[in-house]
């Protein structure tokens, strides 16, 4: 259908001219299937908008100082109409956004949508993910209750372990040696102004790049979807209605959750009394779990650094073929991913248990320095294991590089997920291993 045709005989004239600027005119029919993208990018945007609208209301009530912060939130919850609802929507949207953005990133990776011409958007997306984490992190402190105070203490102390710049960074972020009035102002300014502005700028760029690449990655022809052909259909109403449906359902979902599950608010922060156990926000608990198993230099610096470099590099490697478009690339890729996930699901808990009960906190050869016994040695073992996995699975399946790199990615993602789940549900008092129902 020609553009002129569409514009002439459609009854959405006004909407059309408003939206046509930002959205494509025609979209490939094959890319419309919900399970192709699960609408995760769009969901991130909806959640962001919900955060903005509730956040904009709350800045008129919240008082950013250690003396007043907790009370102002209590006042909002107890005295103000809809106070609970607005805080609840903000709280749940924030947590959901982190989960949804991570899933979006997984979708992009597992459909191979990170190659040129989408390479720049992979990097922009990583920037977005970082900003979302910063946003969650800075927001976490503002409630000024026991949970938030100690979670932020633990996270900023983790920063302090970075060699060289760590302690300076920690001081700058805290605005002093410990969490205090300066920290609240720092976090408040970052959370309400700086990070949202950066997010808007980066998101605009992100969406523009999606259009520049001609929309989302299109599924390749396989036996299953060959009949769908390469038809293009008008954006309105095909994709537009789908986007609206997903957005409305998500809004309804968040509202229901916020009504039935109130955002938590613990005892007011007490710097003299640490709760037991003290945990980071759930999205950093995986890191905290690493810290229980490796020397800090490796847990909070070398391992994360290697992971970040790998996730950036993955878009710049030379691959055997263009396999992008379908979930897990190929049926073989799917089987390899399943093997990788199973491996991580078995080995990560085994490693945790061994380290906890057989090796202990000091490391393997306790006669050497902790950096070696609890850092270099286990990390080398880990690296050797990962490389061996890569070579073995590639040989076993006679696979392409695309599929093998994907399997490795799945291995790491599932491994980190196990660490996070362990930290959130299986760590009790003193960070000892417990069953979730015993805490």
């Amino acid at each position, binding site marked *: 259908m020609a553009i002129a045709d569409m514009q002439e005989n459609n009854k959405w004239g006004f909407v059309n001219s408003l939206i046509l600027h930002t959205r494509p005119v025609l979209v490939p029919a094959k890319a419309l299937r919900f399970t192709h993208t699960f609408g995760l990018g769009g969901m991130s945007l909806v959640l962001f908008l919900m955060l903005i609208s509730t956040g904009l209301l709350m800045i008129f009530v919240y008082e950013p100082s250690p003396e007043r912060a907790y009370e102002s939130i209590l006042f909002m919850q107890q005295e103000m109409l809809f106070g609970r609802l607005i805080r609840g929507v903000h709280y749940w949207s924030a947590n959901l956004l982190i989960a949804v953005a991570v899933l979006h990133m997984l979708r992009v990776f597992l459909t191979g949508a990170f190659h040129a011409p989408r390479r720049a958007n992979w990097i922009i997306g990583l920037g977005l993910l970082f900003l979302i984490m910063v946003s969650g992190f800075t927001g976490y402190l503002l409630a000024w209750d026991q949970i938030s105070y*100690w979670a932020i203490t*633990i996270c900023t*102390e983790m920063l302090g372990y970075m060699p060289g710049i760590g302690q300076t960074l920690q001081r700058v972020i805290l605005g002093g040696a410990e969490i205090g009035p300066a920290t609240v102002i720092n976090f408040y300014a970052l959370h309400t102004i700086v990070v949202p502005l950066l997010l808007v700028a980066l998101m605009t760029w992100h969406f523009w790049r999606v259009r520049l690449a001609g929309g989302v990655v299109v599924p390749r022809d396989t036996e299953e979807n060959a009949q769908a052909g390469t038809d293009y259909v008008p954006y309105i109403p095909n994709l537009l209605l789908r986007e609206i449906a997903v957005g409305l359902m998500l809004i309804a979902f968040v509202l229901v959750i916020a009504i039935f599950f109130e955002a938590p608010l613990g005892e007011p922060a007490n710097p003299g009394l*640490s709760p037991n*156990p*003290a945990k980071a926000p759930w999205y950093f608990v995986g890191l905290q779990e690493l810290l229980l198993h490796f020397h800090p230099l490796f847990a909070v610096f070398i391992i994360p650094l290697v992971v970040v470099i790998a996730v950036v590099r993955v878009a710049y490697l030379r691959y055997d073929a263009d396999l992008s478009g379908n979930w897990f690339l190929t049926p073989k890729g799917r089987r390899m991913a399943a093997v990788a996930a199973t491996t991580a699901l078995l080995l990560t808990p085994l490693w945790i248990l061994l380290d906890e009960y057989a090796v202990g*906190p*000091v490391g393997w050869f306790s006669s050497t320095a902790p950096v070696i016994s609890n850092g270099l040695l286990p990390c080398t073992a880990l690296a050797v294991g990962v490389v061996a996995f890569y070579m073995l699975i590639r040989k076993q399946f006679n696979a392409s590089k695309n599929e093998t790199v994907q399997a490795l990615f799945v291995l790491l993602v599932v491994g980190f997920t196990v660490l996070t789940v362990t930290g959130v549900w299986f760590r009790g008092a003193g960070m*000892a291993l417990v069953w979730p129902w015993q805490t």
Partner: protein
Amino acid sequence: MVSWCGYGIGVAMADIDKRRRSFMSRIAALLGGLAIFEAGWISATFLGPRRSRVSLEEGLGFQVAGPVERFEPGSVTAFRDGHFYLVRLDDGGFLALHRKCTHLGCTVPWIADEQRFTCPCHASAFDIRGDVLSAPAARALELFAVRIDNGIVKVDTNKLLRRASFESHQVTRV
């Protein structure tokens, strides 16, 4: 000849023009860079001193702990406002231990029965001198400087001293 000459001049003019233009754009780039640097420097200078203002407001600084006799040898006294424990060792020397665990920053309570500081967060333990008794903490508890003026114990809560482990020169003696 004339036209040739004119052509030459024309080339030279164009050349000068180009050079002039690249000179101008280099100046512009330099000025732009300078402006960014200035703005960054002003922002950093503006935001820097907030820290000291905040600690002044809190009244942190030299804190009077009390007369020497008030602290028994082998005792640990908590000073909540100053965020430290004043320790008097068996030999009569003083140490002011920061109450923050060197692992991930939890506040360590003094467990008198066991004669040790035990961290509630990941179970690190420290002895009365702040030395690590059990991991995951790797460094001894940090110190504030202690001064004794005319039999009055004073603690300088402005500066924290990081240390790997206890050494006898850290102790302030009467």
